[in-house]
């Protein structure tokens, strides 16, 4: 190997090491940065999806850990935030589905369908707030997700489509159906606001 070639080789190796270090430090830094900016908002999003604050915190915490693991392929705070959102929605759905399977099973076995509400957290007070969370819970999962992303995170149609992995047309359809039902369910409270 010539001196010049060796020099290039060494420089290239060093660069590779630096990139690796950057990627690792970057993951930690990204977690700190995104946690500071988005932790509360993402937990609140998950509460809209799940109702239960403890479960919501678990889901978002888990999403941050997953994001840390994926940092090498994300490498960008915007992409990382999009990934966090998507993961929070997916894992909330999974948590709900799990709860749903158990509840349906019990309902089927007992034929009564009477269940203590496992999601009754200690913290959520206020009639209207409870009514909104109840109404969201009554919606089909996709509609609930679309509404939470649209009205709470205030994402655009195409951002929602990306986050949920569905077409913009579907987003539109879920949004219009969901908001119609929600307005109906919350008519009293919406009326109250007009006054």
């Amino acid at each position, binding site marked *: 190997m010539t001196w010049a070639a060796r020099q290039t080789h060494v420089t290239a190796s060093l660069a590779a090491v630096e990139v690796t270090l950057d990627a690792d430090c970057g993951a930690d830094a990204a977690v700190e940065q995104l946690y500071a900016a988005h932790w509360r908002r993402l937990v*609140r999003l998950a509460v809209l999806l799940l109702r239960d604050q403890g479960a919501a915190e678990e889901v978002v*915490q888990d999403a941050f850990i997953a994001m840390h693991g994926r940092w090498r392929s994300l490498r960008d705070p915007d992409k990382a935030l999009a990934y966090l959102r998507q993961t929070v929605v997916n894992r909330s759905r999974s948590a709900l589905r799990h709860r749903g399977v158990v509840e349906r099973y019990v309902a089927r076995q007992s034929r009564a369908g009477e269940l203590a509400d496992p999601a009754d957290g200690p913290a959520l007070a206020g009639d209207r707030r409870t009514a909104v969370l109840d109404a969201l819970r009554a919606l089909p999962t996709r509609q609930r997700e679309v509404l939470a992303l649209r009205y*709470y995170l205030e994402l655009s149609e195409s951002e929602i489509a990306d986050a949920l992995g569905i077409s913009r047309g579907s987003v539109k359809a879920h949004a219009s159906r969901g908001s119609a039902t929600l307005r109906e369910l919350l008519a009293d409270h919406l009326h109250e606001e007009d006054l």
Partner: protein
Amino acid sequence: MDDLTTLLHDAVEDVEPTDRLAAIRQQTRTRRTQRWYAVGGAVLATAAVVTGIAIAAWPSTDPGPGPSKDPTASDSVAPDPPFPTYYVGDTPQGARLFRYFEPAPEGADSGVATALNLLTAVPSDPDYRTLWPEGAFAGGWIDYAGGLATVLLTDGSLHDRPAGMSAAQARLALEQVVYTVQAQAQALIPVRFQVEGNPVDQVYGVPTSEPLSRAPELDVLALVNISNPVEGRVVEGHFSADGLASSFEGTVRWELKDAGGAVVRSDYSTGTFDPEQLTEWATGDIDVSDLPAGTYTFVAATDDPSDGEGGGPTTDTRTITIR
């Protein structure tokens, strides 16, 4: 601002999440340590002292009593909720976890302690086994406020990985516990292990100084799983089946076979596909009113468009009785 925007913001305005940055830091650190350990551990653990615990590779010949009660009969008392329990079964990807809804043991308390005890008993479905010996657990609880679940081991005898258990099996055994406890918690809550109130640094040779989070579903769960019917269910006239799967385009193939192995019903059920997790599938109503009474096997399988190149489909089965 839109009226719904106001309502949704208002609905969660009071939610003040607890600070979990420390927990997140801790777990992102733990992950790295674990990965490193997994490499070193495979070599080190061969020298581990074997304590003579018989590892429960339960013989699958004894089906156990199973749920003999006719679930279609109307009970005057609503039965206790079943326990989602994660057992080990074989798949083309190797040993994986299957979720099974075990009926609540008579007189058992609800909660983690019972779920853990079910992990040490013979699974109701003979296709499954567990990696935990009888009497392994002394109890457990969930602390939602503290965000931590605790599993008590009876003693220190499961500290090291015993002879005959691979490192992968040891990790799967721990996932059995984490998934089962989190199913009870209905939350993705980290799980720590203790013996008599003291933390243990490893279980089956797997580091447990930091609480454990679950591994991703697609890494540890069987890619198809039957929730209903349960093993030994008696059906009359018709039934339906459902479960979870991660299958090509969300398609699950199902078959009903008679005692001679002949397929008497089969169809596809379509669902959704999610790259991160299993999703629900369901058959809808299956009419079996024209079939002779007897024992049948219901089989659910992932769709395998590669024609076996990827190891073939994963299957899960249930024995049912038609009368």
